[in-house]
Structure formats: structure tokens, C-alpha cells
């Protein structure tokens, strides 16, 4: 079973805009409200829109389960890996070793209200990206598995 052509076309058009907005929330997590979890949930909502609108065979052609599973695992490994690198550098677990270093994401921030700069934050943007990838894959694959659970039943 699939929804009407209007719903399917609207879902396809809105999917791109929702993904771009979710990636914006993930990337600007250290400047504006939001962050990895919120941005990943927004992208997963876009995937859920496509999954609900289309039939099982169409969704299987568009979204691969293996890709989402790899995304989720890679996000968690990257999150723990960034925290473990700090131990390798001789500091404590979860130490922010990139902050104020002048390299990647290493600009300093003056005290008080200011407009902000994207190239700040140390390891926080990396952790936002890792959690965003993980939540994106995790929440999307839950809905995809639920659809595959009912997909067999609908054909009968």
C-alpha cells in the first residue's frame, strides 16, 4: 500500500529541505540552540516522511539498511574515538584538546555576548557530527525495520 501521488511528490520535495536544515542544526550546534541529537532527529524525520509515504518495495530501492547500520556504528565509534584520542595525548578522558589550539576548530572566543565564529569549539563540532550521524542512522533504521515488519503482511 502506498499513499496518493500528491503525498509522495510532496514527501520527495520536502526531503531535501529537511535534510539540509538538519545538517545545518548539526554543524552549528556549538553556536545556536540544537546540536547533534536534535539535528540527527530532524534528518531522521525527513527519512520517516519518505518511508511513510512510499510502499515497501520503493523504500527498499531508495534507502539501504546496511548503510544506515554502518552510519550508526561509525557515529558511536567516532564519538568514543575522539574521547580516547585525548587519553593518547596524555590528558584525561573527554578533554577538549583542540580548543584554543589555533588549528582545526581552534579559534579563541572573547568573553561575553558576541556573534560567534564557525571555526571555534575544539572537539565539540566533531562530537556533534558523530552524535548526529549516529542518531540519524539509529532513528531511521527503527522506522525502516517497522515498515519491513508490516511490508510482508500488506502483500497478502
Amino acid at each position, binding site marked *: 500500500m502506498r499513499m496518493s501521488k500528491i503525498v509522495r511528490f510532496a514527501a520527495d520535495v520536502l526531503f531535501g529541505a529537511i535534510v539540509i536544515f538538519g545538517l545545518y542544526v548539526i554543524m552549528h*550546534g*556549538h*553556536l*545556536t*540552540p540544537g*546540536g547533534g*541529537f536534535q539535528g540527527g532527529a530532524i534528518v531522521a524525520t525527513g527519512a520517516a516522511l519518505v518511508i511513510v509515504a512510499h510502499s515497501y518495495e520503493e523504500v*527498499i530501492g531508495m534507502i*539501504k*539498511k*546496511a548503510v544506515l*547500520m554502518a552510519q*550508526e*556504528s561509525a*557515529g*558511536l565509534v567516532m*564519538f*568514543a574515538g575522539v*574521547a580516547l584520542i585525548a587519553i593518547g595525548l596524555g590528558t584525561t*578522558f*573527554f578533554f*577538549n584538546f583542540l*580548543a*584554543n589550539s589555533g588549528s582545526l576548530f*581552534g*579559534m*579563541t*572566543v*572573547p*568573553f*561575553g555576548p*558576541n556573534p*560567534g565564529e564557525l571555526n*571555534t*569549539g*575544539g*572537539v*565539540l563540532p566533531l*562530537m*556533534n557530527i558523530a*552524535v548526529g550521524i*549516529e*542518531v540519524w542512522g*539509529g532513528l531511521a*533504521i*527503527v522506522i525502516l*525495520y*517497522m515498515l*519491513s*515488519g508490516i*511490508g*510482508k503482511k500488506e502483500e497478502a
Partner: protein
Amino acid sequence: MRKELSILIIIIFGLFLGLIALDLTFGDPDNTAMDDYFIQNGQEQAATNNIVTTIVFDYRGFDTLGESTVLFTAVIGVALMYRKLVKGDADENE
């Protein structure tokens, strides 16, 4: 009898929650010493404007690691349950 009893329980529970809510104050919490520390040093130590992100990912990073692990475990559980349900699916290649 059952209906009156449930209405009575609802009224008692509502009064209980209402009495608790009378003591709460909204919108103007006092700053503790830890709040002041985060606000004074957060921007300098983590080089970030968003103090919420600083606390979630830097000062309280262990909590976020646990949260990610909980999400991962929940998804693995759902995947295991539904894989048994949809056995014989051609897409299940792993």
C-alpha cells in the same frame, strides 16, 4: 461503584499534584556556585558560545556517551527482533 472510585482517585491525585505545584517557583531560579563557574569559564575553556553544548559534550561528556550507548543498544534490540520476524527477506544480507 467503580466509576465513583476512579473519579475519587483522580480528584485526590489532582489535589496532590496541585499542592506540590503551589510550592514551585517558575522562571527565576537562583544561581548556584557551579552555574557561576560554567558561565564565567565556559567560553574560555571550551572556546564555544553555546554553554548548553559545552556542558553536554565537554563538562558532562560521560552522560552523552551513556546516552549514545543506550540509543545504540535500543536500535540493536529492535533490529534483532524484526530480523526474526521478516526471515527470508532478500535485503537481509548481513
